[in-house]
C-alpha cells in the first residue's frame, strides 16, 4: 500500500512504478532542473503533489495536463531527486492513464499524433522508417507545412530510405501489439 492511503491515484502510481509519492517532500529540485518546465502547465513537483492528493479534481487536472505530454523523459528529475524518487516514471504512468482514459488535451494533439504514428508504423512494419512515419504523422496531426524543406535535404544525404526495411515475422509483431492493447487503445 502506498503510504498516502487516501489517494487512489498514488496507489495506482505505486503499483505501476514502485514509487511511493508520499515520500516526496516537495523540495522542487525536479522542477528546478527540468528542461521542459517552462512549457509545462503543471511543473514536476506539482505533479508529485497532485498525485499525493489524488482526489478527482487533482486527477482530472493531472490527466488532462499538457505537462505530462511535454515531459521529454530526460530523467534529470530522477537523477537529482534528494529523496531518490522517480518523477519521470510517475509521469510515464500518468501519461499512459491519460491516454487510456482519452484525456489527452487538444494542445498535445501533435505529440500524441507522433507517438501514435510511430507505433502504427512499427506495428505494420516491425521497424520505424522516416517516410511512412512522417507521412502518417502529417496526415494525423494536421501539421502539414513544417519541415517541408528538410525532406529533400535528408534524401540527398541518404537519410530517407525509400524502401523501408521490414520484420519478416509480422505475425509475431501483431501478437505483441494485440496483447499490449488495452481496450481499443494502445
Amino acid at each position, binding site marked *: 500500500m502506498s503510504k498516502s492511503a487516501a489517494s487512489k491515484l498514488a496507489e495506482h502510481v505505486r503499483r505501476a512504478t514502485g514509487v511511493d509519492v508520499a515520500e516526496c517532500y516537495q523540495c522542487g529540485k525536479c522542477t528546478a532542473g527540468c*528542461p521542459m518546465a517552462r512549457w509545462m502547465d503543471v511543473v514536476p513537483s506539482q505533479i508529485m503533489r497532485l498525485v499525493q492528493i489524488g482526489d478527482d479534481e487533482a486527477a482530472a487536472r493531472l490527466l488532462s495536463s499538457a505537462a505530462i505530454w*511535454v515531459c*521529454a523523459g530526460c530523467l534529470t528529475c530522477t*537523477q537529482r531527486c534528494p529523496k531518490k524518487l522517480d518523477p519521470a516514471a510517475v509521469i*510515464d504512468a500518468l501519461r499512459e492513464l491519460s491516454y487510456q482514459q482519452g484525456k489527452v488535451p487538444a494542445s498535445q494533439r501533435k505529440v500524441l499524433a507522433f507517438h501514435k504514428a510511430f507505433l502504427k508504423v*512499427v506495428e505494420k512494419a516491425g521497424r520505424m522508417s522516416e517516410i511512412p512515419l512522417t507521412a502518417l504523422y502529417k496526415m494525423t*496531426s494536421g501539421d502539414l507545412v513544417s519541415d517541408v524543406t*528538410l525532406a529533400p535535404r535528408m534524401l540527398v*544525404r541518404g537519410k530517407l*530510405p525509400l524502401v523501408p526495411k521490414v520484420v519478416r515475422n509480422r505475425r509475431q509483431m501483431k501478437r505483441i501489439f494485440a496483447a499490449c492493447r488495452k481496450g481499443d487503445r494502445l
Partner: protein
Amino acid sequence: MTPLGYYPGCSDHGSGRELGMSVHALARLAGVELKEIEDWNCCGATAAHNLSHDLAVALPYRVLALAEAQGLAEILTPCAACFSRLKGTVVRLARSADLAARMRQVTGLEYRGPLRIINVVEFVNRLLAGGLKDKLAAPLAGLKVATYYGCLLSRGENIIEGDDAENPASMTPAVKAAGAQVVPWNFATECCGGGFSMSFTDAVVDLSEQILADARAAGADCIVTGCPMCHSNLDMRQLTINSRGRGPYDVPVLYLTELVGLAAGLGPKELGLDCHFVDAMRLLSRAEPRPA
C-alpha cells in the same frame, strides 16, 4: 574472436546512418565481427513508453529473446535511445519475475537473460583498449571537442559503469586518443529535446540552441555525441535554428565513432562524414599531420 551481437536500431538506415557506417568501419579495422540480430524489430523508443508500459518492454523483449536464441551474449547498440530501452528492459526483467512472466506470455518468446548491452562509448573504449589505440595516427591534434552525453548516456540505467552522472568523462579517453582535446563546458548532459524533433520543434530548437551556444562559447570546434537523436537535433536542427533567425550556428556534430575513425585514418566517406547537415568535412582541413 566471438562475434559481438549487433542491434542497429531503426535510425541505422535512415537519419542516423553515419553512426552505423562508422561503427562498422571501426569494427572492420579492429577485426571485430558484428553479428546483426536476425529479424530484429524496433525497440519502441521513443514513443512506446509514452502510451503503453507493456509495449515499451515487450518490443525490446522480443529483440532480447531473438538475440539469446541466436546465441549472442553481448549486444552492441550504437543508438543511445535503443541502448536505453534494451538495457532498461534487461534490468527491469532481472528485477521482476512477474514482469518476465508477463512478457513471456505477451510475446510467446523465451528470454532467460541477462544479456549484456553495450553502447557506442563502451564499444569504442573497448576497441581502443584492444589495440585500436595503437592504430590512431592523431591527425586531429589541436581540435577542440565538446563531448555531449545528453540524457541517454549519463542518467538512470544508461550511465556508463564507473562514470559520473553529473560530470561524465567516459568519452574523454577516446577523444584524447584521437589527438583532440576536450573543452570544459556546461551542457554535456543537458537535454536536447529528445524525441520531440517533429512534434514539439519549438522546444527542441530552444534546448538545442542553448547547447550549441555553450559549446561555441567554450571554444569548441565541434560537438561529439553517441546518440542519433541528439545528433539529428543538434545537426539537422541547426538549419531550423538558423532559419528562425537565431544564430547563425555552424557547429559540426560528429559521432564519437567518426572522430576515432578519422584518427584511425579511415576515409571520411566510409565514416559517413559527408552525410551531415552542418559541414563536418572541413574539420579535416584543420587536421594537422602528426610530426613524424
